[in-house]
């Protein structure tokens, strides 16, 4: 990217009501009224033809396919209209969510039910019940739809192998271990499970994506900083390097919401990650909501130093907008708190980018992005946040 501070999305957007309902049942024209409203905002020219076709078809498979394709198109246009410089995959409209979408395609794994993540958020947790294999391609059908409609570079986010294993129960893999200590059995099971996920699931998927034309794959590994012990970090590096081996493609890592020393530890191991061109990290969540490029105002970005000190030489995707509920105070000029949302002002985004530049040194290495996918925010809020990130990046560019 030639301009400074290009803006990228990280992955998900909320699923529109018509998309969720339409996968389960026939829609009425009333159900599509929200889609019609957004069609005008996003410049979806052929909305009425598509809507007619969706309403007319009695074939469930055709309806679901048309709705997934349309929602993907909407996601792509939302990113484009808000000024984002890459198209992503349209907000991951074709995925249930980052974990379950993959696990459903894995032979040998079973989803057991939901467990608490935080507040009223949960995730469906799977268990390995036998040796695993891939049932069918996971991201390729979505990518083929995206390719049809994307106007700019496409980055394909995929869930990383370490995270898939860490968020699953090892089941079969732990029961087959014979070490006497429970702790050792768990560690050995994790390595075996992880390397199977890499070889049997992730590498075949990347091969298919690259063959289909993917040039940039973002590997989402939020779980990696969960276990900052050296043994676990080495395991992550081993799995990453095995994952990317032999592929001619840009790779980036997205890791968010680390443990207390998570980023410091990730920084130590980041230079060991083969072909890792970018680290997209979450910072806004831990930052203040006041303007300024001094260390106190930008306390949330202090961990960046660790990556620079450790010698990571790639790009940084800088989290400059919060993606969860916000209940704190916002200083004058830094943004607007609306209900449970914070809409960061362009000036706050600018200050975050400029402060990060002071640490990283080279502004050409910095992308601006939300902390994580925006699936927990409404489309109005997601649009407003992305538009302000775009404006904030423009303001930051004025400093150069």
């Amino acid at each position: 990217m030639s301009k400074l501070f290009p803006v990228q999305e990280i992955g998900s957007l909320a699923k529109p009501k018509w998309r969720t309902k339409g996968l389960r049942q026939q829609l009425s024209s009333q159900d599509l009224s929200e889609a019609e409203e957004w069609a005008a905002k996003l410049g979806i020219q052929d909305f009425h033809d598509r809507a007619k076709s969706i309403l007319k078809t009695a074939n469930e498979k055709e309806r679901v396919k048309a709705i997934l394709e349309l929602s993907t198109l909407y996601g792509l246009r939302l990113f484009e209209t808000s000024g984002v410089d890459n198209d992503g995959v349209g907000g991951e409209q074709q995925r249930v969510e980052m974990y379950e979408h993959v696990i459903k395609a894995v032979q040998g794994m079973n989803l057991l039910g939901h467990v608490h993540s935080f507040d009223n958020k949960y995730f469906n947790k799977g268990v390995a019940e036998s040796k695993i294999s891939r049932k069918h391609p996971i991201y390729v059908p979505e990518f083929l739809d995206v390719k049809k409609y994307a106007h700019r570079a496409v980055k394909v986010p995929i869930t990383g192998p370490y995270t898939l294993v860490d968020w699953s129960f090892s089941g079969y893999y732990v029961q087959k271990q014979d070490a006497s200590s429970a702790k050792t059995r768990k560690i050995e099971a994790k390595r075996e499970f992880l390397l199977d996920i890499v070889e049997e699931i992730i590498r075949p998927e990347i091969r298919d994506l690259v063959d289909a034309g993917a040039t940039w794959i973002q590997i989402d590994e939020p779980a990696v900083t969960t276990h900052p012990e050296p043994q676990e970090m080495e395991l992550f590096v081993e799995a990453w390097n095995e994952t990317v081996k032999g592929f001619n493609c840009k790779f980036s890592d997205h890791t968010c919401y680390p443990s207390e020393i998570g980023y410091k530890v990730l920084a130590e191991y980041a230079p060991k990650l083969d072909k890792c061109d970018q680290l997209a990290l979450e910072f806004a969540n831990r930052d203040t909501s006041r303007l300024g490029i001094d260390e106190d105002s930008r306390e949330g970005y202090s961990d960046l130093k660790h990556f620079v000190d450790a010698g990571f030489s790639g790009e940084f995707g800088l989290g400059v907008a919060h993606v969860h509920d916000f209940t704190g105070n916002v200083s004058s000029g830094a943004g607007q708190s609306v209900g449970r949302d914070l809409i960061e002002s362009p000036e706050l985004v600018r200050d975050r980018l400029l402060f990060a530049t002071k640490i990283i040194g080279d502004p050409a290495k910095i992308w601006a992005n939300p902390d994580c996918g925006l699936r927990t925010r409404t489309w109005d809020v997601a649009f407003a946040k992305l538009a302000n990130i775009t404006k904030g990046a423009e303001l930051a560019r004025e400093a150069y």
Partner: protein
Amino acid sequence: MSLEIQLAGIHPRSEKLIELTRSYERAKASWSQVEVQLEQETREVIKLQESLGFKHFSDGALGWQDQLRPVTRALQGVESGTRYSRWFDTNTFYQKPIIVGKISAGNIDPKNFLRADLLTKERDRKVTLPGPYTFSQLSENKHYKNYADLLFDIATAEREIIRRLKNEGVTLFQLSEPCLVYQPYRESFRDQSEVDLALGAIRSLVKDSPGDFVVQTYFGDAAPLLPALLNLPIFGVGIDLFETDISSFNEQEKTSKAFVLGVVDSRESFVEDANWIADTARKFSEKVDARQLVLASNSDLKFVPQGIANQKLEALSKASELLEGSG
């Protein structure tokens, strides 16, 4: 030696309650609908404990959004903040308490800690709270210059919470102190003076009724700290047997303390066999002559779906019968 089984923290919500809370988030269900389901499920958790022969009853803490929040909201000088931090090495998060002023007990509503109204028939009630050391370690301190002051103020404030909960009929308090045994979340290794401070804060907290407290450790090896824990003036000590190797204990250690054995793994879906649980408890008894054994999960069961959590409790109950049957 007597034997008991207990809940050791937050019990998982059912799929029905999960769906309702999600609907509430999407403004498709009212909070009162959630409350009705919460109440019904709390009754079911209590009923399950009755059917499995529990002696101390918990309400399952189904309404707790994380392990710290009710305490955070009962303290003055502490704000909930907006930052979500990872709960140790799990895929769950908690709202990080931000310490912005001198800590003291604030507006304590016992209902936020325990549904005492649903536990009317039961004599002994148990509540799980974060211990002062763990609470302080998982908070962000923006006020205190001296860590000891912070730690002891938390202990004093928690003592007030406990006093209020005793009025609600609580007879057993589990102080969860995973930070005493789990290290990787921090940069510098805990030194002896810090351990002494932590234990001092616990002593301060329990001083009014030491016999009502169990200090529960999990997610780390308790063996190195065990002698110090056993010196605390408390009823019992809890250890995570998936992190602590029984063989590392001294031969035939005798203690007047009760031991809470975290002998089912709250982070693995595999339901432990009752015979294996009983054998493990026997092996422990051969090493440690404890006043009482409590069989429990190693930490909150909220890390597994509810159906599995309930099966794990049933396995504990069967193991307890096996142990009692074998004398």
